[in-house]
């Protein structure tokens, strides 16, 4: 087990990078705790696999050092780093039995056969592979194969970290639930440092203690799932985490009121009252806004946006554009001052109105300037 220190790492696949845009990874400077379950989350091409390969040693970063428990391992090959990795597709030794597959990393390191056996049986038990132990690995179903790949990663008790590169891609949706639970249980039991790369926010959020959100070669936020959800430090996090993503409204703070602007930056008048459309803020938000520079944006999660079918004092009137049934809940899409907002309704909530009134609970309002959260 180890703490992983990424010390000012940057990487470019081009030999002589000229500008910032030549870098697949811009500047990563972080310390990841021992025994934590981390998820690297981001869209395709955000650099998450590059970062993973740097940690595993398959890639040497162009700049910066990487340390395991304070020891510089930047130039060490993967086998010296004491890590395990599970790939997107099952990687198996076809000619070996499941047992031999699991035992392979131990045998290569010269463990005696008794301890190999104990450990393999233990891991097989956890992964429910015991019934297949003496079968050829090649003949098994995709999920069993992927479990073997997982097993080969888990079998060494001394590894610094186990890295997962979108390991559930090939697994049927129904089995994903089960395998994810398995992984989570294993983490609880064995307290390993796990790093899990994925583009699927559900996988990332349910699996990890700490989620590392990457965007265009940078880490935009590291936090617990709850932090990412409640206080996204970057607009991208707000958009990427949560389904649907966070609502954003450009605004200007006037006193303790956030006045909504249309896409040209013009304030919108409310037809009926000839007043600006305003959302009341609290003192903290007001003072944050006063210190900020640049265009302000108000963000609120669909989950927290309150929607009323009838007029409520202080609520803003909006037009309903669409209502989607998700089964467990509904998503309502409304238009407010030309901006599209989404809100989450309970499955039994109202349907069939043309206008709704929106209430913005002040505790859940977040303000952003230059794409960053004000705090």
């Amino acid at each position, binding site marked *: 087990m180890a703490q992983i220190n990424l010390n000012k790492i940057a990487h470019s696949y081009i030999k002589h990078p000229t500008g910032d845009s030549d870098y697949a990874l811009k500047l990563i400077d972080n310390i990841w705790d021992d025994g934590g379950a981390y998820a690297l989350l981001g869209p395709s091409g955000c650099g998450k696999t590059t970062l993973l390969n740097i940690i595993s040693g398959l890639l040497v970063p162009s700049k910066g050092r990487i340390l395991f428990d304070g020891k510089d391992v930047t130039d060490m090959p*993967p*086998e010296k780093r004491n890590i395990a990795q599970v790939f*997107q*597709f099952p*990687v198996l030794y*076809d000619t070996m039995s499941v047992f031999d597959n699991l035992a392979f*990393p131990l045998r*290569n*390191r010269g463990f005696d056969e008794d301890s190999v056996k104990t450990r393999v049986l233990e891991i097989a038990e956890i992964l429910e592979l015991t019934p297949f132990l003496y079968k050829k690995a*090649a003949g098994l179903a995709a999920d069993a194969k992927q479990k073997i790949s997982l097993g080969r990663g888990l079998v060494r008790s001394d590894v610094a970290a186990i890295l997962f590169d979108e390991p559930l891609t090939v697994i049927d949706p129904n089995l994903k639930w089960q395998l994810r639970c398995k992984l989570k249980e294993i983490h609880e039991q064995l307290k390993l440092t796990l790093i899990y790369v994925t583009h699927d926010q559900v996988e990332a959020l349910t699996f990890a203690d700490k989620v590392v959100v990457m965007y265009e070669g940078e880490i935009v936020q590291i936090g617990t799932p709850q932090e990412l959800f409640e206080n996204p430090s970057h607009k991208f996090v707000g958009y990427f985490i949560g389904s649907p993503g966070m609502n954003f409204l450009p605004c200007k703070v006037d006193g303790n009121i956030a006045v909504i602007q249309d896409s040209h930056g013009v304030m919108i008048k409310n037809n009926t009252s000839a007043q600006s459309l305003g959302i009341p803020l609290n003192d903290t938000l007001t003072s944050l806004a006063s210190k900020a520079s640049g265009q302000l944006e108000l963000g609120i999660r669909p989950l927290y946006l309150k929607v009323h079918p009838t007029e409520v004092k202080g609520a803003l009137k909006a037009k309903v554009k669409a209502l989607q049934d998700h089964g467990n809940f509904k998503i309502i899409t409304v238009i407010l001052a030309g901006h599209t907002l989404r809100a989450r309704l309970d499955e039994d909530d109202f349907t069939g109105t043309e206008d709704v009134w929106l209430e913005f609970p002040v505790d859940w309002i977040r303000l952003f300037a230059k794409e960053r959260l004000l705090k």
Partner: protein
Amino acid sequence: MNKWEDNKAWFLVLPVFVIVAFSAILPLMTVVNYSIQDIFGPGERVFVGLEWFEEVLADPRLHEALMRQFLFSGLVLLIEIPLGIGIALLMPKKGWGASLSLVLMALPLLIPWNVIGTIWIVFTRPDIGLFGSFINGIGIPFDHTASPIQAWITLILMEVWHWTPLVVLLAYAGLRAIPEAYFQAAKIDGASAWAVFKYIQLPKMRGVLTIALLLRFMDSFLIYAEPFVLTGGGPGNTTTFLSIYLVKIAVGQFDLGPAAAFSLIYFLIILLLSWLFYQVLQNAGKGDA
């Protein structure tokens, strides 16, 4: 795989069928006809039943040629396959080196087979050949036209020289097709180079190696032009393989009946081998997927 079911596809196959049937079925029928008759000349023939078959089956020279053939094919495979794999492992994986190696490697395959024989005559003659005079020079009298053992060694050397590149190319292609993740996983698992070879490269190459093995076996079984040019089957009959013997009977002695019976037996052996080949191929394909 999932394919469309449609018997109209036969129309697409028809041209191939016609062109191959013309060259394959009519001659084959003729061979069958010849095999049960004694033919003296155009229009002069006598039905003899299965006599030629009995004669050919009892012919000790055929038995010898067959044994020689198996020995030769066996030896050639034993050398070419491991050598081919070894060389393939050494080949550079990318860049101009890979390109150049591939082109050089393929050169011997592009030479007409009788020219291969010629090259090796020129190369091994004790008077003017580099190889021949070199062996002579180190004190071993070398003359493959006189010594059966030396004739065999020369033939095998030539065959290995000629065809190992094919094994190399196949094995190389097989190696290149292994996803990088396997090597990464093996590295992380701490596998030695030998373990990587034994547990990843060799099993993953199984498909192409089967093909290489069978192709080489079949082709060495059919070998004609190279030994014909190099040794002419001699000295004596010591390098007379099946094809050479067959041509000797058919063209040399113009014994059409026995030659036809011989052809059919030869053909049946080949048919069985190709069938096995085909089955293994299909299963190898499944194994890879």
